[in-house]
């Protein structure tokens, strides 16, 4: 903690204004989630572009930003992914000071468990790639896993025994709402307009360039339009005649009651589809697998939760009598290679940021930074340059199925 004073939720500090939308903006960001808000912040801060509106159809940061399990890590396999996620992690490390707002960023480490010999190979491969990319990563055997997280059951005769784990000590969690509010507060102070309950219903494209958006609160002219509407990317892009290689799926999560501290880190298991941490107030926060069928519903199927609980108890027998207090779902958009699409589109002055699947939260500062650069300069930032739409034509995919917590 540095000396710089930070505001925090509960102290009543003003967060953001709710102005009426102006007739036009230099940049209109469609989607007031974490990515949209952070992009507005970096547009203002890094590029001096403050005539910006963030349009949100519901309440600000009420989509996936409000629904994710807040895991932050950068231990992705491929160079391209490690680049943008590690950039994000470095920004996370200075975010509270940068925003002057408490976001409860806690670098408690993340364990990604391996349950089969192939998991072990894949894990070691990723750890080594991470280290060569400057991302902190270690391979831990079962005993070390137990040291880092004593409540993990590492008995070798378990149905899917823990054969080890990758460990990223700098990884952790943050408080999602605080992050959104901290960014919004700082951006609002620089002049960005956050316009809630303003649904985009159309995108005007003339002569191959985007001109304006139609909204439930009227037409808003825009020099540039930046899409950042995770879950609804296809719908919004479709308004500009743009087809995206993404599919929307429901992803569920749940929370327990407040419990005395038992779980000091974050544990993820691809094989059994569980990821869990214990938030600062004491509740267990857990994510599940995605529902198979396309869906825009924020409620998933219950058998996914039942399966998740069974898997969780295999790893953490101590959770047996913890209670599920609340379950919920969010809509994630998933790409064929489990990597995002961030950059230019065939439509002039229209930019797209989508396809983060289950992993968008952790990227928030990084994608905000790079997307703002892309919008401001009309050229992708080197870190998001690999994440083009064109890669699906050339075949130069960034296949991160192994690194996502949920098999897509």
């Amino acid at each position, binding site marked *: 903690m540095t000396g710089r004073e930070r505001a925090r939720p509960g102290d009543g500090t003003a967060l953001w204004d709710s102005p009426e939308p102006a007739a036009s903006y230099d940049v209109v960001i469609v989607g007031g989630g974490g990515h949209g808000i952070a992009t507005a912040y970096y547009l203002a801060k890094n590029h001096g572009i403050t005539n910006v509106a963030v349009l949100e159809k519901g309440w600000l940061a009420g989509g996936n930003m409000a629904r994710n399990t807040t895991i932050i890590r950068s231990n992705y396999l491929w160079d391209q992914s490690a680049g943008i996620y590690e950039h994000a992690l470095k920004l996370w490390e200075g975010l509270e000071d940068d925003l002057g707002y408490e976001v409860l960023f806690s670098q408690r480490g993340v364990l990604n468990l391996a349950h089969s010999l192939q998991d072990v190979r894949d894990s070691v491969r990723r750890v080594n790639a991470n280290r060569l990319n400057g991302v902190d990563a270690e391979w831990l055997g079962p005993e070390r896993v137990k040291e880092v997280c004593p409540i993990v059951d590492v008995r070798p005769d378990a149905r899917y025994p823990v054969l080890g784990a990758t460990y990223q000590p700098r990884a952790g969690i943050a408080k999602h709402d605080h992050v959104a509010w901290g960014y919004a507060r700082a951006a609002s102070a620089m002049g960005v307009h956050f316009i809630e309950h303003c649904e985009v219903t159309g995108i005007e*494209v003339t002569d191959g360039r985007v001109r304006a958006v139609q909204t439930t609160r009227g037409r808003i002219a825009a020099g540039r339009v930046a899409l950042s509407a995770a879950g609804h990317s*296809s719908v919004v892009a479709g308004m500009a*005649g743009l087809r995206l290689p993404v599919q929307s799926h429901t992803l569920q999560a749940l929370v327990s009651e407040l419990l005395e501290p038992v779980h000091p880190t974050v544990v993820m298991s691809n094989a059994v589809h569980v990821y869990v941490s214990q938030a600062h107030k004491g509740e267990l926060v857990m994510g599940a697998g995605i529902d198979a*069928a396309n869906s825009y*519903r924020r409620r998933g199927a219950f058998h996914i939760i039942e399966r998740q609980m069974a898997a969780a108890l295999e790893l953490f027998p101590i959770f047996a009598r913890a209670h599920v207090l609340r379950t919920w779902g969010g809509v994630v958009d998933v790409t064929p290679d489990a990597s995002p699409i961030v950059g230019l589109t*065939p*439509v002039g002055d229209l930019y797209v940021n989508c396809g983060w699947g289950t992993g968008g939260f952790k990227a928030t500062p990084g994608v905000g930074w790079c997307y703002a650069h892309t919008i401001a300069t009309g050229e992708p930032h080197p870190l998001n340059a690999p994440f083009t739409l064109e890669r699906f*034509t050339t075949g130069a995919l960034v296949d991160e199925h192994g690194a996502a917590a949920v098999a897509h």
Partner: protein
Amino acid sequence: MLLIPCPWCGPRDEAEFGYGGQAGVAYPRDPGALTDEEWARYLFFRDNPEGPFEERWNHSAGCRRWFNLTRNTATNEITPISPSGDASPPGNVATGEVGTASASWDAATGGPR
């Protein structure tokens, strides 16, 4: 747990089925004649509407038949399909035009199809 109406076995729990995504995307007649872009359309681009969606399901834990139905992705409402014994032929080629592979990708003029 959705209740999926298998045209043969009747309504069964979603967990008995495999999901096949968008219906009516046919394998191109001559893949070799396609441009890379057209081939990419076939491989990776599928409709993703918020609303009625014609999609494929496979009763993998039951009769193993593939079939199509229309489900609203915003409400999960399923449009009733023919009763068992009179199932419409499933699959990709049975539905409408021959896929999207030949659709041009021209965003400025309103996108594919």
